[in-house]
């Protein structure tokens, strides 16, 4: 490989350091008018009346919209299309959009929103998942699993009781992972431009232009062919821009109505209301261990606070259970999950989607197990790794598993054997691991089409244009795409031109979520490039009188491997091929392999392969205050193969950063006022000042090891890196604090008062712990029992039809799928 695997400058680097990258809010065509939204000031209320007249009379106002103007519901998952662009009839959280005002300037629009008066009839509010299951009425939505329950899941893989009976030790833990949000520095923005003959183009800071395209067509009732969605480079996404947002629909609708460009740029506070961030999750974990640390069975219960709408929540619910099985041998496993509706901004997918919470529970639990069994936490894990290529108890097919090498690297790097358990009081080391998808196995809506497509055009000047729907959100996907094509064709990055994330011009890629782009768009690019190379080799071989198989593409030339001086320039090869074949273009596409699970719910969790990470974290705790400082993080990530190691490092370090933020301080917190005085239930601190995102001075040293073991399912062997390395960080912190002062903090974020509380308990001879006590009584619904591969199962649940839900349905669509 000439390019792949080397630290080349990212292809969008120059634009980003010169201020030339055009983010959505940087676009302001002539005649642009501006939209501001009136948002709900009540957490749960019926809308009695809206008085728009004063706003309409305000200077500069061009149009005013309410929910009745956009009556068709939408939602990212077909099973929960429960949103309206503007609230209809009812509001469900403070900050929900209710009215849109368009005016000549943003200031005029803003002033006009102040003139809108909405008359509300307050309803009782629900502030937490516990409250939601205890309060079936009033219902926040009239769909779901009854009361204020959105979704219930209960899956048992194998004979759990038999597994617990085999155990020498059974551990049970309760813990809590609080909600937090993405906080991309770029606030969401969208610009809609009307085109000729009733067409409209939307430029938006979205991670999922294809899904936005579909939703716009549905809500605006326009043929999809008349709508074009362009995802601008995202100024940070992290999952927060992967839903379809009401404001995107509003500007498209207004552009068509007003016949001029319409733009909206959200304020920071509004970004907090868009949210779709990490679900707060209560967890109960029960695991049987043999003396050697092997697991005989595990039962995980999760209770998710979903906020006011579905978003990706059904998938999130499954994800709080699905990936527990891919790291260590877990022969029998039961997962019960429930997502509740509450009167808060909707939760959804944030980096690691649904998996950091149970991973925290599992990795802290393993630390406790190691102590209970007298085993070293690293040795315990290394002894019971999930084998490569295995099918797990819940029917996930694994690819390469580099977890063992990850653990070994951080154990050696951190001096674990020498230092763990032996540092002076106040200092500690903690180890934890994680694993993540390399793309969700199934698309969000049922179809058998490619999940990613690439087209390549070859110019007779030697230029190569690559078209792909993938979206650059900072993760470096443009560079992956360009590098793979350049590598295969033996040309320089400067000869590759990209056209991406444009539903009008590029083949579909489902979006930048579930860590899917490197693997899926990368494989599609690889296929398209290999096809182009075959055409060029054929023509060049004919011209050179050589077997096409013997030709090498490198250094901008096509030449005989045995006689390198015998060849053509790349441009000459294109001319030869175009002369013979006419205009040159190739395509590539990617469809993930079919997963072996056939039970209802098997659609969430499968991935072509999984990435693995391990981290050791060193902490210093001040027992006088409970304040602590993370001094160093050693992290190893199994990336399969780095397309660009420097960008891979950036993803690892960024994941460590975000994981530390969540573990130490970030909190999507809410306030409820005394209910006898006020119905208020508000975001406690929707600002960058009070939502604590770590600064330069809060980051420890990071030592990063890239573990390369190419996975044949990835393009040139590559796996994901954008999300997985976040997972080990929160549990590694909790485990390190235990090593430092002997206190167990079974919740995140870990605030200093929690450490002092645990130390105070310790001083009184009580359990030195801070965390939730008992898991609430939850009805998870009927349990689907699925025999494991080991038990001779066939991937179906007992009593399920042979058809299952994974095969093509005769009509309608199965209840759950996606990623």
């Amino acid at each position: 490989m000439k390019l792949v695997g080397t630290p080349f400058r990212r292809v969008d680097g120059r634009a980003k350091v010169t201020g030339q990258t055009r983010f959505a809010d940087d676009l302001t065509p002539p005649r642009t008018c501006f939209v501001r939204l009136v948002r709900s000031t009540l957490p749960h209320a019926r809308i009695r009346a809206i008085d728009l007249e004063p706003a309409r009379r305000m200077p500069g106002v061009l149009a005013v919209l309410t929910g009745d103007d956009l009556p068709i519901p939408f939602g990212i998952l077909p099973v929960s299309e429960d949103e309206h662009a503007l609230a209809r009839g009812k509001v469900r959280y403070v900050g929900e959009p209710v009215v849109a005002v368009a005016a000549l300037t943003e200031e005029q629009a803003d002033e006009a929103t102040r003139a809108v008066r909405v008359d509300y009839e307050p309803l009782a509010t629900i502030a937490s998942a516990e409250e939601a299951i205890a309060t079936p009425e009033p219902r926040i939505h009239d769909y779901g699993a009854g009361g204020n329950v959105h979704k219930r899941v209960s899956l048992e893989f194998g004979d759990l009781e038999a597994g617990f009976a085999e155990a020498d030790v059974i551990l049970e833990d309760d813990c809590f992972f609080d909600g937090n949000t993405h906080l991309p520095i770029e606030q969401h923005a969208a610009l809609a431009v009307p085109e000729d003959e009733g067409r409209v183009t939307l430029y938006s800071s979205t991670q999922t232009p294809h899904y936005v395209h579909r939703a716009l067509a549905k809500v605006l009732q326009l043929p999809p062919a008349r709508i074009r969605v362009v995802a601008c480079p995202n100024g940070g996404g992290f999952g927060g821009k992967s839903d379809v947002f009401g404001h995107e629909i509003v500007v498209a609708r207004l552009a068509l109505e007003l016949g001029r460009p319409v733009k909206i740029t959200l304020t920071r506070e509004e970004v907090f209301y868009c949210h779709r961030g990490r679900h707060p999750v209560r967890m109960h974990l029960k695991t049987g261990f043999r003396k050697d640390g092997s697991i005989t069975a595990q039962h995980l219960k999760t209770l998710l606070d979903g906020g006011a709408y579905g978003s990706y929540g059904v998938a999130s619910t499954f994800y709080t259970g699905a990936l527990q099985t891919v790291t260590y041998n877990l022969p029998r496993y039961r997962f019960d999950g429930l997502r509740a509706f509450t009167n808060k901004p909707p939760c959804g997918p944030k980096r690691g989607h649904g998996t950091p919470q149970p991973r925290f529970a599992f990795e802290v639990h393993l630390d406790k197990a190691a102590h209970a069994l007298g085993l070293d936490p690293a040795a315990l894990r290394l002894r019971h790794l999930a084998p490569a290529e295995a099918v797990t108890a819940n029917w996930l097919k694994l690819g390469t598993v580099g977890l063992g090498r990850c653990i070994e690297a951080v154990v050696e790097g951190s001096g674990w054997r020498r230092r763990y358990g032996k540092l002076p009081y106040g200092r500690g080391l903690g180890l934890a691991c994680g694993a993540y998808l390399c793309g969700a196995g199934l698309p969000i809506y049922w179809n058998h089409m490619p999940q990613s497509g690439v087209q390549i055009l070859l110019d007779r000047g030697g230029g190569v244009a690559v078209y792909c729907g993938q979206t650059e959100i900072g993760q470096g996907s443009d560079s992956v795409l360009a590098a793979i094509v350049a590598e295969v064709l033996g040309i320089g990055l400067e000869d590759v031109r990209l056209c991406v994330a444009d539903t009008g011009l590029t083949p579909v890629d489902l979006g930048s979520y579930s860590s899917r782009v490197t693997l899926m768009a990368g494989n599609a690019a690889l296929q398209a490039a290999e096809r182009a190379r075959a055409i060029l080799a054929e023509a060049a071989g004919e011209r050179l009188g050589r077997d096409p198989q013997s030709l090498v593409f490198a250094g901008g030339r096509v030449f005989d491997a045995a006689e390198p001086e015998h060849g053509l320039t790349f441009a000459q090869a294109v001319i030869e091929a175009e002369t013979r074949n006419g205009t040159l273009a190739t395509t590539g596409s990617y469809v993930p392999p079919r997963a072996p699970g056939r039970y209802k719910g098997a659609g969430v969790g499968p991935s072509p392969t999984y990435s693995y990470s391990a981290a050791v974290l060193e902490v210093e705790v001040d027992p006088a205050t409970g304040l602590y400082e993370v001094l160093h993080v050693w992290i190893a990530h199994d990336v399969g193969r780095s397309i660009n190691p420097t960008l891979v490092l950036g993803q690892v370090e960024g994941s460590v950063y975000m994981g530390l933020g969540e573990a130490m301080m970030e909190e999507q917190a809410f306030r409820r006022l005394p209910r006898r005085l006020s119905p208020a239930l508000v975001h406690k601190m929707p600002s960058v000042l009070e939502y604590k995102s770590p600064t330069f001075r809060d980051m420890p040293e990071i030592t990063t090891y890239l573990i390369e073991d190419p996975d044949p399912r990835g393009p040139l062997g590559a796996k994901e890196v954008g999300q997985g390395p976040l997972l080990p960080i929160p549990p590694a912190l909790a485990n390190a604090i235990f090593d430092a002062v002997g206190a167990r903090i079974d919740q995140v974020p870990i605030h200093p008062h929690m450490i002092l509380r645990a130390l105070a308990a310790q001083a009184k001879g009580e359990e030195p712990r801070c965390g939730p006590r008992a898991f609430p009584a939850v009805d998870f619904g009927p349990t689907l029992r699925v025999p494991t591969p080991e038990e001779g199962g066939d991937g179906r649940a007992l009593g399920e039809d042979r058809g299952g839900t994974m095969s093509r349905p005769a009509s309608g669509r199965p209840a759950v799928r996606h990623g």
Partner: protein
Amino acid sequence: MLRLPPFDFRAPRRLAEAAAILAGEGDGARVVAGGTDLWPNMKRRHQHATTVVSLMGIPELAAVDDGGGELRLGATATLAQVAASDAVRRRYPALACAVRSISSPPLRNMGTLGGNLCLDTRCTYYNQTEPWRRAIDFCMKEAGTVCWVAPSSPRCWAHAASDAAPMLCALGARVLLRAHDGERVVPLEELYRDDGIDYLNKRREEILCAVLLPAEAAVEHCAGSFWKLRRRGAIDFAVVSAAAAAWFDAGGAVERLRLVLGAVASRPLRVVAAEELLAGRRLDEEAVAEAARLARKAATPMDNTDFQAQWRGLMVERYAAAALRQAAGLEPGIRPPHHPL
């Protein structure tokens, strides 16, 4: 974008002119210096102005004057200038430390010493946009009737978040106030009131012109210290701060001492009980511990900023002890990350 509402902007070149504008414009006029407090507050629309008078064009207000005796710091000297000033670093290092701990470098390039001393009191029920505050039906400090921090309380509990103020109070600084009809010099401590709404003993038209630091508070006479608790290594306001200034007699006993807390009351809070306790005593472990407990008793950390309020109460004790210990030349006894010292 969150934008400012319209206002008339005046940028006089002379102090007398500024004072005349303020006298003439009535209640709608406000003074701005660095803008790092007023502009966010106006953007969120919990402070209002029809006319804003900038002091930044008045050269005499920006000067730092060190005659070797009293040090005069102009009110519009930026926080960066104050922290970097040779006189401050040499003679009042604890003040340099307090000022360096404020927010972040770009903010310190903009924000001024006078602005920091007049900083509006803060509260997470108040420092919010108008729609957010509408959702709680506003609060007593702005447009509402209830203090949501303590709904049955007749007063507003917004807290004083300045870092320079507690330190300067401890050092016994005075301030020069000037209006169209005259000027006065008052101890900085007397500028403040323990009321979240009317937190300054200052007429609207009075301009804070300068801070005067007494020679007796310079490092050769006085041991000063400043400790601040905040979540992150930058940007954040203090959630607890403790400033101490101690004068010792020849025998090493405390002759005089001031202990002032920040962020735990609506004003910089002098812990008089602790000061009285320590007068004439040696600052040993026992005395420090006793005084720190008195500090905790005096403080009223409320649930209106970051961190759990009860824990902040304990931190008052720890941070007050750290400040006293440092003044006595002892180890501070706490090891927080990223302390500005």
